[in-house]
């Protein structure tokens, strides 16, 4: 509270001094929040009266409010001085000290922007931002002294809310008058400013003004913010904001804008003029302006990168080193039937995207500099059965079809009949022998794709009777009487939204609306564990490619990393502003990507839980993520019908694939990464030329400093084929080990 105490004292003595503008470099600084609450607003907001005591009633109230504040902080001398100078009467208003100070100190949100020193905004905002000790006391205080909070909040650095339309129109007029090259960049300011002003109006219970403000200016915003604006339009009262965590987070976090230095100078110069100081303060409060040196961006470039709820990613958010290489494959002795040239050293470390036949590429023992160390995160050791699996995998890999623009894969479509729009999740095992479907009636059904039927392990009594030493004991433990083509797993209490097989085909994970993630055994077809942690619907879950770990993401805006033998999560990845809708592991299991309803994709480090990349650019919630097999690239699909391609190492968008007409729910790279298949609600599967999309990038060209993206409009050339199904939306795609494409969806006539 030290900063807070210092502030008001200055306020009393320096009422006429305007707040110094923030310095350059990073645009914003929250340290400036320590400036006294009522300097510039007081001087320019209302009808010009400053320190004279006999000002209009609003100022009188302000003085009283400041007086109370000083009293509360026991600055008795300042109180006397103020009272003397302002000529206030001796009656002092009582103040419930405890509640306010408790709320004030407990109310610093994690992002620390308002917590700087601005007690007024703390007080006005703390009732919802901090659910900790003191919502009740502040409310009580508010009831007793409605004037204090309202007045203080009015005299926060944000000026008088009633004048927001005026400020906004003024800014609009200015931006329309600047040079074309700057206008696109400066127009980025409109949306966050609009939303923040609207929320401020709602927060101050100025319902009709808020509505008028909304009606007047919402039409100017970009089309891709339409959904957000619709949600905003339904929020007209302060109470409505209580349950809406996303908007509360939006209010407390800073919207990131990337503006070139020239444009920024223009804006700053204009806003620091006397009459425009309000907007300047608001901008400082809520926006983080990431300045870069260079050419201002064009509208199309900006449109490509914007659209998320939190603005774009800051440059330093994308600067951490990411080990995107693949882990070394373990050495496995291969049976010498037809692979004579396969030596014991079987290592797969692709550095560049050379077309590679098998994993037996280079025999060098040098570590790929971009690959994580083998022991960076603990991984389970390979069991005998895993080694057998790997041998099978390599055998299959030799028979793999080489795909290319002139050699497209065949597509085999698995239609789920009689699902009545209840099919919500599908997964295939890696060797494509089992398929599982999660349904809205909370069941999970597993089918065998091969002629081999599904059998359950015998009961304990019978297991005792078999001969454990026989060679085919793994067959004998199975109970033939229970063999069937499909099995139904009951257990969840709500629709099943995410399904994932384990790589060793022993377990199946399912995540549901009831908030749990269940682990099922595929030997006994019963549920083994229910992992409780999310208390809200879990939208997606994914097993790690090495087994043992899995990730889940849900409505509570976090993703959690679990291990099958811990009943609590090992890592919590928090940072998204809205639900986490899609979670995927990187092929080396050291990183995972989460896509969210706030239209960003974040890449997290499993080792320490840090967010290492933020990718913005989608204009709708992200529902599909796919890592390329070499670990370098990430493809994402969202409800805006576009597939975006990202370079993980540089943290940049490198491609955009337009073509679908409806939300994309599935993405998959072929086994060698040459083809990207995407399936969407418009009943099509589209194949894209991934090698061409990634080859075109020249890493030297990238102005990584500015992050300018020069997206070529070559979606048409990259599109290799569109395959329609008859009214069956495609919700899952899977390439078999031989590069046959399997697709799954529910027939929806």
């Amino acid at each position: 509270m030290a900063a807070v105490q210092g502030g008001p004292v200055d306020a009393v003595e320096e009422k006429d001094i305007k707040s110094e503008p923030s310095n350059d470099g990073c645009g914003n600084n929250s340290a400036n929040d320590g400036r006294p609450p009522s300097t510039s607003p007081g001087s320019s907001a209302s009808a010009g009266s400053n320190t004279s005591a006999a000002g209009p009633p609003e100022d009188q109230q302000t003085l009283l409010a400041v007086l109370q504040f000083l009293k509360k902080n026991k600055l008795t001398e300042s109180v006397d001085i103020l009272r003397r100078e302002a000529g206030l009467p001796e009656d002092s208003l009582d103040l419930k000290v405890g509640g306010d100070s408790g709320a004030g100190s407990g109310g610093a949100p994690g992002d620390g922007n308002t917590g700087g020193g601005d007690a007024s905004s703390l007080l006005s905002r703390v009732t919802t931002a901090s659910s900790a000790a003191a919502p009740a006391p502040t409310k009580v205080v508010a009831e007793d002294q409605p004037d204090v909070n309202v007045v203080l909040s009015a005299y926060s650095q944000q000026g008088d809310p009633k004048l927001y339309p005026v400020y906004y129109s003024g800014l609009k007029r200015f931006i329309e008058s600047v040079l074309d090259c700057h206008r696109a960049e400066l127009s980025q300011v409109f949306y966050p400013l609009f939303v923040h002003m609207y929320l401020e109006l709602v927060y101050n219970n100025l319902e009709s003004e808020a509505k008028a403000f909304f009606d007047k200016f919402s039409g100017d915003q970009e089309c891709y913010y339409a959904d957000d604006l619709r949600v905003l339009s339904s929020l007209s009262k302060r109470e409505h904001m209580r349950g809406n965590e996303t908007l509360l987070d939006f209010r407390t976090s800073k919207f990131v804008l990337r503006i070139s230095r020239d444009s920024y100078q223009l804006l700053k110069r204009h806003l620091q003029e006397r009459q425009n100081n309000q907007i300047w303060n608001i901008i400082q409060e809520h926006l983080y302006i990431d300045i870069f040196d260079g050419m201002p961006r064009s509208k199309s470039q900006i449109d490509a990168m914007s659209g998320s709820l939190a603005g774009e990613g800051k440059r330093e958010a994308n600067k951490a080193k990411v080990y995107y290489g693949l882990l070394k494959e373990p050495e496995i002795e291969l049976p010498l039937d037809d692979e004579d040239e396969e030596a014991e050293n079987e290592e797969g470390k692709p550095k560049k995207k050379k077309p590679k036949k098998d994993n037996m590429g280079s025999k060098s023992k040098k570590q790929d500099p971009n690959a994580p160390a083998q022991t960076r995160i603990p991984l389970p050791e390979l069991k005998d059965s895993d080694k057998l699996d790997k041998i099978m995998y390599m055998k299959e890999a030799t028979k793999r079809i080489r795909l290319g623009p002139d050699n497209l894969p065949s597509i085999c479509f698995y239609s789920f009949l009689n699902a009545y729009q209840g099919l919500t999740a599908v997964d295939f095992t890696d060797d494509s022998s089992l398929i599982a479907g999660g349904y809205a009636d909370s069941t999970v059904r597993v089918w065998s794709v091969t002629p081999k039927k599904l059998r359950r392990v015998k009961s304990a009594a019978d297991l005792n009777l078999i001969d454990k030493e026989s060679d085919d004991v793994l067959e004998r433990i199975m109970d033939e009487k229970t063999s069937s083509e499909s099995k139904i797993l009951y257990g969840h209490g709500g629709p099943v939204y995410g399904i994932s097989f384990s790589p060793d085909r022993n377990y199946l994970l399912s995540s549901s609306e009831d908030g749990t993630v269940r682990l099922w055994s595929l030997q006994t077809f019963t549920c083994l564990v229910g992992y409780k942690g999310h208390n809200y619907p879990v939208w997606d879950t994914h097993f790690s490619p090495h087994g043992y770990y899995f990730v889940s993401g849900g409505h509570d805006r976090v993703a959690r990393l679990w291990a099958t033998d811990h009943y609590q999560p090992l890592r919590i990845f928090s940072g998204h502003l809205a639900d986490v809708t899609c979670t995927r592991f990187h092929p080396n299991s050291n990183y995972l990507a989460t896509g969210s309803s706030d239209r960003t994709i974040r890449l997290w480090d499993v080792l320490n839980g840090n967010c290492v990349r933020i990718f913005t650019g989608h204009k709708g919630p992200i529902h599909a993520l796919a890592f390329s097999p070499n670990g370098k690239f990430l493809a994402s699909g969202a409800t805006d019908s576009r597939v975006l391609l990202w370079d993980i190492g540089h943290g940049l968008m490198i491609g955009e694939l337009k073509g679908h007409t409806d939300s994309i729910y599935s993405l998959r790279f072929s086994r060698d990464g040459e083809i990207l298949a995407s399936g969407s609600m418009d009943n099509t599967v589209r194949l894209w030329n991934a090698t061409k999309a990634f080859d075109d990038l020249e890493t030297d060209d990238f102005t990584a400093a500015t992050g300018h993206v020069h997206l070529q409009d070559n979606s048409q050339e990259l599109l290799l084929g569109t395959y329609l199904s008859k009214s069956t939306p495609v919700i899952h795609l899977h390439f078999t080990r031989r590069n046959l494409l399997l697709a799954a969806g529910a027939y929806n006539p």
Partner: protein
Amino acid sequence: MSAPKTIPKDAQVMIQILKDMGITEYEPRVINQMLEFTYRYVTSIIEDAKIYATHAKKSSVDADDIKLAIQCRMDQSFTSPPPRDFLLEVARQKNLTPLPLIKPYTGPRLPPDRYCLTAPNYRLKTVQKKVSSSVGRISVPRLSVGTVSSRPGTPTLGAPSVHSVSTKVGPPVSLTGQRFTVQIPPPSQTAASKTMTPSTPAVSNVLINPSLIGSKNILITTNMVTQNSSDSLKRKHEDEDDYDAL
């Protein structure tokens, strides 16, 4: 919607609300569902408000009562996820601990038994006269990590051997609490295997599907089952605070 029928006013309002929120395509029954929800919610709020008003000895319900009713209902049914700063703090704490090392060769890697759903949720009542090997055939499926006789990598549920079962069944087991009157049919393989799959009602009177109920119920019943047996070490007491779940 056929033209001659007039839609009631409620439904018209609901259609307008859906339109305002931008929802253009929906099945006709959505309106019915929305109206049902609205009616139920408003009724419960007003009833609560009436209770508050009578508690405050007011003659009629006023706005404050309604506000209080809404607030209480919000905290109870319509909770929202924790705020961001709280989550960030919790995440920071949790992410500081290093990832635990993985012990090799431990069979199926599952949490401790009390956190799994693998325990039985019933106990068999012995019929005095028929304490024969037939009873012993009904094995109580239990997963104890480490005593699995099959090889690692293939989790099985039928772990305990016969002899441990018979020691349990021998002395009369006193059932406290719920009574399961289970007649053990002449043992057949299917019956035995079916006891492991909770969803089948082959064994009479066992109503509980263990995977649908919370593990707490499982704990209750296994508590009773394992009173006399020696290998109940893992489930001594019902833990209220097992789930310090976040």
